[in-house]
């Protein structure tokens, strides 16, 4: 009940403040509130970037602090620090031992807000500004604070990603009670020995983890979007990227794969291979890539050296 009351107050604050951009604190409260609501929904998410486009339907359920998302590639569930995925009926779990607090970048402010209806429910259409330009349009359910429609905008104002719920039921839902999760991995923080920057293009390096024997996983977030960078010893091109779209940033070549919810980018620097995966929009991604280690080929002598000494 308390959550609902706070949610209603937050939406009321949006309505009252529609004449002028609201403070970042109000926006932070509103976005944070949406993640606490209990509900079940069915939706469609689609993403378009140039000639790459991808779409999928999904179901999302949140009850008692447990979140479950089911899509065509399988299911994912989170409860506390445990995340489990299932693609063939069995569940494998990964425990995240530590993670940083969620912080919303102060480059985001709340723009206009207008009353609307969505799925037959009272809702508020909210625009989130990114340094004064529209970045996010959301239709937020007045009762629960859950976004029923989310549109992520690229720098030119076009819709880059859209997630829309086509059915929505507020309140707790039944979760599967026969989940047998086999814990297979633990994501443990490691001292920040990576050369990956602490902040990049407005994104904060929230956590650094070990990923396998000799890879590093750096997780970045600006509170609205997030991405992971995996840094590994230089390796061959992953098979999934053989037919990926090649694109250039500042004259450097990268390969990308677009899924409904994420973009995956791979590149090789002279000594390291990198994989970035996240939900950030293209113009943010370009800025990020410009500030991460750049792609490059090893020269012949370096190849000899690596062949000899690793």
């Amino acid at each position, binding site marked *: 009940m308390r959550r609902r009351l706070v949610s209603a107050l937050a939406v009321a604050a949006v309505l009252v403040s529609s004449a002028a951009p609201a403070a970042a604190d109000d926006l932070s409260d509103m976005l*944070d509130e949406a993640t606490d609501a209990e509900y079940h929904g069915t939706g469609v998410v689609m993403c378009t970037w140039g000639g790459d486009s991808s779409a999928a339907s999904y179901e999302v359920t949140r009850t008692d602090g447990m979140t479950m998302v089911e899509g065509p590639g399988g299911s994912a569930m989170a409860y506390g620090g445990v995340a489990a995925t299932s693609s063939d009926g069995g569940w494998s779990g990964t425990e995240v031992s530590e993670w940083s607090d969620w912080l919303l970048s102060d480059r985001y402010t709340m723009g206009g807000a207008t009353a609307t209806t969505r799925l037959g429910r009272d809702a508020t259409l909210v625009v989130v500004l990114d340094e004064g330009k529209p970045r996010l349009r959301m239709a937020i359910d007045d009762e629960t604070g859950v976004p029923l429609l989310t549109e992520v905008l690229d720098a030119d104002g076009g819709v880059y990603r859209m997630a829309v719920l086509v059915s929505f039921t507020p309140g707790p839902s039944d979760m599967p009670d026969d989940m047998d999760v086999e814990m297979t991995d633990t994501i443990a923080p490691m001292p920040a020995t990576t050369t990956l920057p602490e902040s990049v293009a407005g994104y904060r390096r929230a956590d650094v983890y070990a990923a396998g024997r000799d890879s590093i996983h750096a997780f970045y977030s600006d*509170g609205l979007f997030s991405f992971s960078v995996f840094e590994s010893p230089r390796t061959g091109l992953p098979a999934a990227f053989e037919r990926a779209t090649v694109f250039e940033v500042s004259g450097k070549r990268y390969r990308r794969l677009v899924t*409904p919810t994420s973009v995956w980018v791979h590149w090789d620097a002279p000594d390291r291979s990198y994989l970035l995966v996240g939900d950030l929009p293209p113009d943010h991604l370009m800025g990020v890539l410009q500030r991460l280690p750049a792609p490059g080929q090893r020269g012949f002598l370096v190849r000899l050296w690596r062949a000899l000494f690793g």
Partner: protein
Amino acid sequence: MTHPGDLLSALLDGELTAAERRDVHTHLESCARCRDEYEAVRATRDAVRELPLLDLPPGLLPTPAPARRPVLARAWTWAAAGAAAAALAIGIGLATGSAPAPMDLDTFAEHHTARVLVQPGFQTVRADVGAP
């Protein structure tokens, strides 16, 4: 495309995708300078690979101390032995050196998904519903 530069040695090492191989070959057909560079890189690479791995010319390795050999001759013998050892090492390195295994995308996807899922605060959709 611009001059491929280090892509030439990557081409020889079989590290390019089919599209990149096609681009480089197309460029080579029209660029004499890059053809020369490609041939030079290939010749160097072939020369290194063809260095003797096992059959060292007799007399290059140091033998038990012959009495009173001239200092200069002894130095040349050691230099030749060093060069042969380096060539052997390079040959072995090229013959046996293998690239590390490609990135394990499944594991990385699980790590990213797990981290995103446990993150409090806002996300458009709280999981990647379509990893490649």
